[in-house]
């Protein structure tokens, strides 16, 4: 990271990361730096909104509104919080509000089942092999993963999204979605195991067959 030349060595700013400097500058009125500050998180913020709203146009609109809210509240942002988490929480909040508002047209809400209390039994015990992350360079793979995620019930999908994709911790996920940490853990377990089964089934149908794995081995 290039050392910004305006920072004096003895200034308290010297010990700050580029992000902390940006936050401090925006808080002091340098509005033009706000986009630079939030830009690295655009993708995560959008994905969070999309996970909740499931509509690209709505998600984008909510992101824009959420960024304005973040700007309006940035004087209250405290350095001990993670900025990315803070942004995502604002976005999730905005998206949930939007969904509540539009609830009448969202059929999915009616089909919610209560948390499954019973244990989840994995269905597929195929031999595994590590799938290299480079597989994600292939649009087909990303699409399969997205499709599997879309098959989960909303409550599992959202928790999985926040914890495993947005990298919020359990407590932050609970706060963002307004549920208990116990619920987060139960749903997370189920989401992870269901996704594994869904993708294992996909493997059998040849979704990943063109990936360079050893013949006969299965990654799930």
């Amino acid at each position: 990271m290039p050392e910004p030349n305006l920072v004096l060595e003895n200034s308290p700013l010297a010990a700050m990361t580029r992000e902390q400097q940006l936050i401090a500058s925006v808080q002091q009125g340098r509005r033009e730096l706000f986009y630079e500050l939030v830009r690295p998180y655009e993708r995560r913020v959008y994905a969070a909104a999309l996970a909740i709203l499931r509509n690209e146009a709505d998600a984008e609109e909510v992101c824009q509104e959420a960024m304005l809210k973040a700007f309006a509240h940035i004087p209250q942002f405290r350095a001990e919080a993670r900025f990315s988490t803070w942004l995502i929480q604002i976005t999730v909040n905005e998206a949930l509000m939007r969904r509540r508002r539009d609830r009448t047209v969202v059929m999915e809400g009616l089909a919610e089942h209560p948390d499954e209390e019973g244990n989840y039994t994995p269905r597929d015990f195929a031999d595994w092999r590590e799938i290299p992350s480079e597989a994600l360079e292939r649009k087909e793979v990303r699409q399969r993963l997205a499709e599997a995620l879309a098959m989960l019930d909303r409550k599992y999908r959202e928790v999985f999204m926040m914890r495993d994709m947005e990298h919020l911790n359990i407590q932050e996920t609970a706060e963002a979605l307004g549920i208990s940490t116990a619920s987060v853990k139960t749903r997370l377990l189920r989401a992870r195991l269901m996704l594994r089964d869904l993708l294992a089934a996909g493997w059998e149908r040849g979704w990943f067959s063109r990936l360079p794995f050893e013949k006969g081995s299965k990654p799930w």
Partner: protein
Amino acid sequence: MVVSCEAVWREISNYLEDDMDPGLRSAMEEHFRSCQHCNAVLEGTRNVIRLYGDDRMFELPSGFSRRMERWLTRNVVVSRGTWPGWLIAAVAAVLVASSLTLARSLMTPNPPLRSEHAQAGHGIPPDMVVVVTEGAKLFHVPGCEVIHNKDKQRTLTAKEATREGYVPCLRCMRKYLNLAGARRAGAHAEKDEQREAAIRAAVD
């Protein structure tokens, strides 16, 4: 401590979170060493977490960043003091809506009724290189004297500029704009922009 497969499945998520007491943890490790099924579940779940946790899973719709930057420029950078952001946004939306109609009419091929003479050289070529600047609503021929903030200018095609809501500058784009209606609409946009700038200056 000995754990069953069922217990392992129940705890596998906590195991991966490293959220359990050391006794259970080592019992599970022991189990994974001897149980192929649970090992498959563990490694598959690790695959799930690693792949979905990768940044490459996130794709933005095309133009998202550009629209976000423009949105924030309008509502955060440009709107100062007590000038409420939503009002600027509303004004901008009206301007964009009207200018879009105008620009679309400029860029589509001329209607068939017009004479061949009138068609020649009219309309802005969609892939013509033009220049825009932050906070302004006009697009220009590079080097136009009306461009302010030359250090913040950005180059793009006329088509992209139009899609982003910019309208042609009357000074430098005039030769493309000899449709009477277009000139009127363009003049409106320019006047609106001046008015907006004046309001902003007054509020500052």
